[in-house]
């Protein structure tokens, strides 16, 4: 049947979209009202058990970021808004509001319906939910980290809420923009957001605006949300459907992994595809380059990720050193935690070497014995890259802060120990394969079954080790004891990581083939 002969019996676009949605909504395993109610019940219970105590505890302590005047609020609000826009854009590039169930999208893509007809409604609904979620998240963060909401009679309270509402309006449209617009347009928006934030922050700190800085920020955010939203919704009509189909297929697969407790497999799906330098691994005479050069070339095949790693490692090294160099500063712990987390993130983005190591330890032996063996082949690049980047950034920071409180030796020891701890945590995280069945066994305590908490911790074990390790190190009486603690934690991480692969410790040195 041709399309000409179908015209007589064809329904109007609205009826076609409604028909598909209706049939899809009545499929076999759709969520029932009871399912949704149970999800809400679980969310409330988990929030009451785990979140409320944290909120109460934090509320009773001194604010981490004191905001006592409008001049202090404005720069923080600008920074928060800029970070929200950038984060939303980045999220949109990977998982945007237009992602649909692959089959449903395939059905719509096979028609002559304009994407606006079938994506517009769902985008508006998701953006509304995202806006409300962002508003709640920003208000919660402000409540936990600042003293903005401590006094209900403060004049800063309505200004803070207005800024939060502004961020809640602009972040969702930036999310849609991130997905629907090109990379170039996204870079332009990110730069514009940075420039606007800088100008507003400088204006807000000066005396020109009086106490109205946050109001101005909120107004700018509202205008930006309206303009961006209009523009982003217009681009839905011309969205790249092939790219959207790929994103939807990937999101569906990732959702399955995440729901079955293997979040790391879900994240693996979002690794960038390598491009370029196709013949750089070999020398002109055909021989392979050395381990370090191989690692560098492979990292440069995913340039965006390598750049993110370089920035993250350098920033992490600088902030970590800052925290170590000023142990008596009120923000030393925050700096050390933030620095260690940034180094942890960067250590995972430096390349595929960690996964190569996991594969070598868990799959059938492929490589023969060579000089340096398994560690040299797989760990040379990530360890060197992390060490050099953190060392360089730390060195520059230390030079700028010279002389260091507590002496350079103690600072160097603490930074080195922290980096070792981070690398150990990264190793532990990367050796993860499938969710161990024993983690599903109940953990009965007076607070109830904590097995869900254990599974949650397992998902983010590397990060948990970094945060807990740095906090414990921070509580130690001397740098030497802190370094010993970090070393012990690192050894534990390596042993635990190897246990996950089913290999003994000596296999790291002798190679899996002879273990």
């Amino acid at each position: 049947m041709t399309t000409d002969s179908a015209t007589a019996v064809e329904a109007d676009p609205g009826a076609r979209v409604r028909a598909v949605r209706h049939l899809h909504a009545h499929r076999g395993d759709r969520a029932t009202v009871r399912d949704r109610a149970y999800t809400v019940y679980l969310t409330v219970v988990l929030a009451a058990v785990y979140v409320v105590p944290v909120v109460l505890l934090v509320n009773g302590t001194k604010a981490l970021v004191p905001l006592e005047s409008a001049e202090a609020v404005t720069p923080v609000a600008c920074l928060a808004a800029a970070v929200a826009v950038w984060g939303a854009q980045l999220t949109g590039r990977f998982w945007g509001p237009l992602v649909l169930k692959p089959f449903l999208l395939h059905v719509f893509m096979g028609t002559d319906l304009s994407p606006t007809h079938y994506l517009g409604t769902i985008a508006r609904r998701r953006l509304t939910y995202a806006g409300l979620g962002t508003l709640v998240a920003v208000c919660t963060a402000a409540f936990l980290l600042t003293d903005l909401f401590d006094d209900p009679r403060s004049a800063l309270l309505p200004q803070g809420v207005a800024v939060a509402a502004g961020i809640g309006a602009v972040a969702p449209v930036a999310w849609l923009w991130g997905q629907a617009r090109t990379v170039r347009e996204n870079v332009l928006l990110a730069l514009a957001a940075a420039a606007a934030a800088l100008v507003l922050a400088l204006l807000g700190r000066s005396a020109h605006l009086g106490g109205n800085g946050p109001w101005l920020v909120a107004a700018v955010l509202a205008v930006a949300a309206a303009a961006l939203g209009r523009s982003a919704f217009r681009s839905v009509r011309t969205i790249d459907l092939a790219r959207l189909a790929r994103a939807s297929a990937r999101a569906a697969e990732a959702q399955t992994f995440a729901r079955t407790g293997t979040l790391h497999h879900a994240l693996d799906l979002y690794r960038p595809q390598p491009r370029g330098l196709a013949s750089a691994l070999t020398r002109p005479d055909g021989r392979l380059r050395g381990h370090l050069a191989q690692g560098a070339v492979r990292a440069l095949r995913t340039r965006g990720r390598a750049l993110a790693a370089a920035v993250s490692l350098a920033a992490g090294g600088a902030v970590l050193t800052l925290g170590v160099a000023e142990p008596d500063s009120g923000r030393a712990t925050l700096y050390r935690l933030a620095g260690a987390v940034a180094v942890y993130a960067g250590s995972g983005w430096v390349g595929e070497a960690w996964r190569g190591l996991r594969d070598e330890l868990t799959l059938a032996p492929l490589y023969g014995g060579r000089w340096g063996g398994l560690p040299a082949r797989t760990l040379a690049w990530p360890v060197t890259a992390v060490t050099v980047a953190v060392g360089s950034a730390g060195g520059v920071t230390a030079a700028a802060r010279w002389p260091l409180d507590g002496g350079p030796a103690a600072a160097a020891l603490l930074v080195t120990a922290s980096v070792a701890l981070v690398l150990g945590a990264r190793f532990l995280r990367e050796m993860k394969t499938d969710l161990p069945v024993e983690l599903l066994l109940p953990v009965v305590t007076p607070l109830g079954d904590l097995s869900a908490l254990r599974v949650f911790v397992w998902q983010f074990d590397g990060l948990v080790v970094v945060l807990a390790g740095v906090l414990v190190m921070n509580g130690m009486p001397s740098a030497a004891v802190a370094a010993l603690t970090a070393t012990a934690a690192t050894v534990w991480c390596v042993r635990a990581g190897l246990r996950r692969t089913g290999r003994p410790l000596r296999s790291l040195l002798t190679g899996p083939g002879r273990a």
Partner: protein
Amino acid sequence: MSGLPAIAAEGAEVVLDGTTLLAPTTFSVMPGEFRCLTGSNGSGKTTLLRAFLGSRRPTGGAVLVRGEPADMTRPRHRRLLASLVEPVPVARDMTLREQVTLVAASWYGNTTTAAGRAEEIVGRLGLTALAERFPSQLSSGQLQLFNLALTLVRPADVVLLDEPERHLDTERVDLVVTLLTERARQGTAFLVATHEAVVVKACDGVVELG
């Protein structure tokens, strides 16, 4: 029937990083014509189908659908063209009948026409007895027939198929060929990449690549 080809390749060529995926190719398929695309592995059959589909842009020459460059973003292009070239993302939680009806409903709305079209194509492909099953309960051959049903239930002026005989036994291949020939007689143009002699024998002409 107008004199405008349903699809046409005019020196269409695809080169990626110095590797030729499709050598310059010229041919056209008229409305109601059933044309096969043959050639060895790597000769560019799927690449050419993707170019017509609009998911692969030719680096040289042009691919035209009803005289206009293939472009998936254009509603008219999506209206004219149906394809089974890329894997179809089926819904694991819907039965065969539900999924085929859903595709029909995307054209005819939630009407008896949609249900009738779906039932007809399911019957023609011998899937009636399996209509209440879920995709995971099908064999590879049955899944292939199901994918063909999803593709053929919608109206189209041009249908692109990449090895429709995949996983099918001789009897089912005959069933599919009969259906394609019948649809071609009703005015739909077919371009089918195939290695199957039965399909080649039934078509109106062959484009040999490579």
